[in-house]
């Protein structure tokens, strides 16, 4: 009886606290990045910080709702949720509003809604549901294909809407599938292909092919585990194919602005004039955000004191580049704390996921951790110039109602599932 009365409050408070710490700190930085003038009206709805504050308040209602719903609901209705979500994505082609070249928004009154943010949660639910089905065997090729299809549908839909950033997020599900028993060679092949692609882009396909050949010869002589000749030749041919394929992909399929981002990242561009031009256009953000972070030093310039933030030097600073505000105003102490908070949150979710008795909850938990992780990795990596520019928000931090609510839903469904694990003996 006692256990039963407390049931609704047996949530994992660590996750909840970490979540609110990030949301709260995020809002402070949005305030700093978006306010103008001297007086601040916190509920000024014409300003991002005012709107975000409303979004945060609404989040509380959303959380109560999410926790009030029976845990079984999510598992049972995951397919329905997935289908509705996919339809909302398809609907964008008819009713969508285009912002910054991506047709990702529904305009309802004065509000905009970005269904692709919610699609990630829906996909995570659907994948969890499908894998946890007793009839599914991830080691069977047929089921692998089916799982891939579930993941690829939303990925393709958002890609068609010109939202490359959100597409890449779906790669996160690899971690989920791998955890659930996806054969090892997927990992091996994946890692090889990524390495080969980068090397090939950097040094050209011919050099990469020669390198692969030398590597195989070296492997043949040095390793105890010998590969058969035809195996080696096959690997070599694949390597050559990948090298040239990447080049083709880079030159013929990628759009010029995407090429530029990669060429800047890999320092391929040597022409100083072109570099100058890049610095003035898309690399401008990157350059400015790196400078802002760097100028923060150890302790930062102080809340609302960042000169580059106040001067709005980093465009889109309250959305994708919010981390540069943290870097400038809170310095190493603040930005390192944010990194640590994210790592703690991720590890906590991962830890909880492993504790789940139900496979659905575990797979879903893994999905949550993977999706947040990929956002965290790409966003902060991009803002600090470690990876090419890809426009996705920093979870809980970046300005945006859809994003905030989508992550709230993503996390709190898991919090609910986790609170229910005690009942699943």
């Amino acid at each position, binding site marked *: 009886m006692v256990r039963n009365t407390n049931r609704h409050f047996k949530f994992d408070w660590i996750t909840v606290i970490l979540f609110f710490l990030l949301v709260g700190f995020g809002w402070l930085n949005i305030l700093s990045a978006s306010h103008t003038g001297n007086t601040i009206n916190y509920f000024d709805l014409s300003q991002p910080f005012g709107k975000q504050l409303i979004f945060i308040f609404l989040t509380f209602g959303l959380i109560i709702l999410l926790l009030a719903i029976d845990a079984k609901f999510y598992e049972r209705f995951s397919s329905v949720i997935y289908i509705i979500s996919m339809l909302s994505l398809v609907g964008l082609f008819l009713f969508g509003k285009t912002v910054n070249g991506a047709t990702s928004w529904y305009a309802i009154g004065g509000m905009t809604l970005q269904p692709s943010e919610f699609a990630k949660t829906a996909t995570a639910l659907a994948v969890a549901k499908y894998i946890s089905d007793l009839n599914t065997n991830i080691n069977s090729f047929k089921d692998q294909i089916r799982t891939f299809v579930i993941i690829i549908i939303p990925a393709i839909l958002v890609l068609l809407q010109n939202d490359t950033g959100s597409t890449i997020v779906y790669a996160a599900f690899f971690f989920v599938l791998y955890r659930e028993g996806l054969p090892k060679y997927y990992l091996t092949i994946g890692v090889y292909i990524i390495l080969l692609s980068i090397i090939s882009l950097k040094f050209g396909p011919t050099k990469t092919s020669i390198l692969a050949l030398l590597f195989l010869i070296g492997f043949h002589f040095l390793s105890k585990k010998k590969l058969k000749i035809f195996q080696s030749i096959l690997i070599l041919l694949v390597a050559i194919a990948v090298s040239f394929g990447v080049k083709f992909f880079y030159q013929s399929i990628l759009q010029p602005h995407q090429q530029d981002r990669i060429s800047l990242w890999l320092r391929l561009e040597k022409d100083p004039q072109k570099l100058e031009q890049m610095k003035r256009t898309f690399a401008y953000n990157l350059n400015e955000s*790196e400078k802002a972070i*760097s100028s923060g030093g150890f302790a930062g310039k102080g809340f609302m004191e960042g000169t580059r933030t106040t001067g709005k030097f980093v465009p889109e600073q309250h959305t994708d580049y919010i981390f540069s505000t943290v870097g400038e105003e809170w310095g190493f102490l603040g930005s390192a704390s944010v990194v640590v908070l994210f790592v703690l949150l991720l590890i906590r979710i991962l830890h909880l996921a492993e504790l789940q008795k139900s496979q659905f909850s575990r797979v879903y938990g893994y999905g949550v951790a993977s999706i947040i992780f990929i956002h965290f990795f790409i966003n902060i990596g991009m803002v600090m110039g470690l990876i090419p520019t890809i426009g996705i928000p920093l979870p809980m931090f970046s300005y945006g109602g859809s994003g905030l609510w989508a992550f709230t839903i993503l996390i709190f469904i898991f919090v609910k599932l986790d609170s229910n694990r005690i009942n699943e003996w």
Partner: protein
Amino acid sequence: MRQFLLFIFIIAVGILFLSRLFYLQIYDSNNYSLFEDNAIRKVYDYPKRGFVYDRNGNLLVANQPSYDVMVIPREVEPLDTLEFCSLLKIDKEQFIKKYHKAKRYSPRLPSVFVSHLSKEDYAVLQEKMRKFDGFYIQKRSLRDYETTIGANVLGDIGEVNNSDINRDPYYKMGDLKGKQGVEASYENTLRGVKGIKFIQKDRFNRNIGPYKDGKYDTIPEQGKDITITIDAELQAYGELLMQNKRGGVIAIEPATGEILAMVAAPTYDPNILVGRDRSKNFTKLYNDSIAKPLFNRSLQGVYEPGSPFKLMNALIALQEGVLTPDETVTCYAGYKYGNRFMKCHCNRGTRNNMITGIQRSCNAYFATTYRKILDKNGSSSDGIDIWSKHAQSFGLGNFLNNDLFVGQKGRIPDRAYYKRIYPKTFYSTYTISNAIGQGEVATTPIQLANMIAAIANRGHYFTPHIIKNIEGQSLPKQFTKAKYTTIDKPHFEPVIEGMLQVYRKGTAASLQVKDIDICGKTGTVENFAIIDSLRTQLTDHSIFVAFAPKDDPKIAIAVFVENGYWGSRFAGKVASLLIERHIKGYITRKDLEEWLLKHSLENEYAKPQSGKPFKINGYTSFQIVEEQEYYRLKKELNRINKAKN
């Protein structure tokens, strides 16, 4: 293992991010400085540059505002070009040309559109300026010379160059800085300290407002006015007398070391280095490698001092006790040493004591004296070091360590110097030319003037300096503390008596000025130039040193006139007139004045440039200036005289 993949990734990415942050914010981040933050615009507020007054309180240098129309091309909106052009007094073609030039330089940064507007144009334009977006007026401060004299004294200001900025980060691109003269040597006093305003800007480079409400802003500190020791009237008179001649004049007040006049000829009007034509005119002056108007001959001209240096030898001889003032030396119309002979103007068999030796400038007397000094202890090597030490105590052979922007060491040789030329044996006869101020001895006019000041003071001098007073500051000790020579006071009297006789009966007898006891010494110095890689002798330099009055000296002076032939021919006249003017305030020797205004040495200076063979000294003829030039000089003289009354 499978459950650890994501875990490992999370930890790895966390560590990667932390190290990147460490690199960006701690390792790579220079200590944050407002000055280096390009999100903050630094606007400088330039203080008033200090004024320069002469010793009598006459304003020499002030400031004048100058207005430049600036343009920021990308902020320019369509405008009424016709009206704008007529306001600026340019035509439409020029407008388009200037606009494109500015745009090519940078569309975002301001560039000068039209520089140096007149005050009237500025007044009209200012009213209408708001109609022209992207254009604005920038006020700058330029120097305003209240005089046409003293270019070499006053110097000029110009924009700083890269090495100035690297040497002193106070200066920013486009700042003005003293380049020559007192503008350069008193730069820090005159310039003041500029104020700074920090203004927060946004990424479009627009001002948003003062950074932190101006918490870190500073107000400018005005430059201090200075008074220099120059007597503008004497300076103007000196410059007038030296027109159409080349050389340097330095007049010092012996009791203080203050420089009364510092003339370098030829000179130029300091006003030509102000404003729109500055760089054109500067280039012209700079490129004149023959007359060298930028070469300050009174400070930088290193000449053999000639006969005035005999005074030095006389003093050293008395101090070292190698002869008495009454001891006589017989002159055989020259001095024979070994199988060589040094000529002299004296009649054969003349017996000179020290006073007549100076009066007649007897070479034989001083050759004997010099040898006695060097051979006193039987070793010329020791002797020359003693001799050198005495001469150096008069400030010769080294920088005077004063407040003038340029200078030269000159040369007083010692044994170490001669080691290279005579490594083994060294006899007094080797350097006998030093006896008469030629050979290896070299001085600048200011050093020689200082030597005369030390003689006038009977044994001490004050470092010659140009600063008389700085607003609210006392002069540095080095200018107010007497420096003593190594010659005892009594030894000066016979030498001064000799100098007095130079005027009474000697080489400068024709230059006497009524009621003033002037002590002087003429000098005539051989000099050479390399013409077509041949060492060619030119007409001798005319040199004169003097101080007056004999008791309680008011002025010590050194005059060098290049190729003036002999001491009293040009230099002596200049010196006598300046002395009279300084002491009496008016001129009685109008004949000398007239003579100097009328005579030019330009024919002499043209000789080496002519490319033809030429004759010197005895074969030179006087060149009378053209009538027009003569009237110009007369008018100038009247102006100077009138300014006095």
